[in-house]
């Protein structure tokens, strides 16, 4: 089974892009240049900060719904 979405231009809905796919690229891709104000959180640091935020938030938001499922200790 294959699903393909092909984003057809700036007018197409951005909701179709999964945040997780976007963050794969935005947090680990792009030209890394020193900015004036955020040098200390550029690069690797930024990735760590953001991913920690993501994991924490998602866990808090989703785990209540997952309670019915069996989870291995």
């Amino acid at each position, binding site marked *: 089974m294959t*699903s393909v979405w092909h984003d057809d231009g700036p007018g197409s809905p951005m909701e179709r892009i999964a945040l997780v796919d976007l963050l794969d690229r935005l947090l680990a891709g*792009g030209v890394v240049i020193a900015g004036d104000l955020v040098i200390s959180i*550029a690069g690797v640091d930024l990735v760590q900060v953001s991913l920690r935020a993501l994991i924490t938030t998602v866990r808090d938001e989703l785990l209540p719904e997952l309670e019915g499922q069996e989870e291995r200790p």
Partner: protein
Amino acid sequence: MTGTSQAGDRPDGTAVYLYGVTRGLDPAALRDAHGVAGAPVRGVVADGLTALVSTVRLADYGEAALRANLEDLAWLEATARAHHDVVDRAARAAPTAPVRIATIYRDDTRVVEVLTAQGARFGEVLDRVEGRAEWGVKAYTVPGSPRAAATPDRPAEPATVSAAGPVSTSGPGSGGGEPGAGAAYLRRRQRERRRREDAGREAAARARDLHAELADHAVAYRHHPPQDPRLSGRPGVQILNAAYLLDEEQAEGFLAVARAAGERLPGIEVEVTGPWPPYSFIDTDDATPAREPGDR
């Protein structure tokens, strides 16, 4: 925001957010473009390059604010989507080198300095991505599929278990119990584990084959770490999460390969996303050429 005149007139309290750098962009491509926090996007031009920027408030994008805001998923998502929107729009119109999210400068003058100082580097990146786009391919095992790697929360072969009636082996009537019952259970557990391991190996091998086939139709590729299922919301095991850089004319063949693989491989689901701006192919060190660079 205390007054509407603040943003444009005085640099105090504001900074400049840089999305990416393009070459030969028609300014019309930025008409009505909005960036982070809804601010209009403009081009800062120097040395034949155009930096895509918008004005942001230090109250939101200063160092301390940024640290706090990056911990806020809704804020991060809004910024990421706005960043992507600007880069994507430019990348469809001209070769574009995205920069890392949340790269901030004091003012336009500093952006001009950066374009001048880093012009050669941006030039190299733009040469590499011109006429090309990034495509993403993810592959998952399908939970419940007999040939997919079984997920731990789904007991395998429930029919066998109920037919054998393992519950009765703990009953009191057997007087010491059948000696084989516990051992049979362990053997069954072991078989299940081995089956899962085999299925996992098989899935990994299929992912490798799929990747090799896709890489044949690409200029370069880069593996991303497997996505956390809590973020992707996907059941099943993600066995491939890769980005491929394609020449425009390669896209059709590449997509055909991906589609055919998804239909051919039992228990494997293939998901393709794109075209993306070439986010994953900016640092040469990170990306692997799929074959020798030929005609470029």
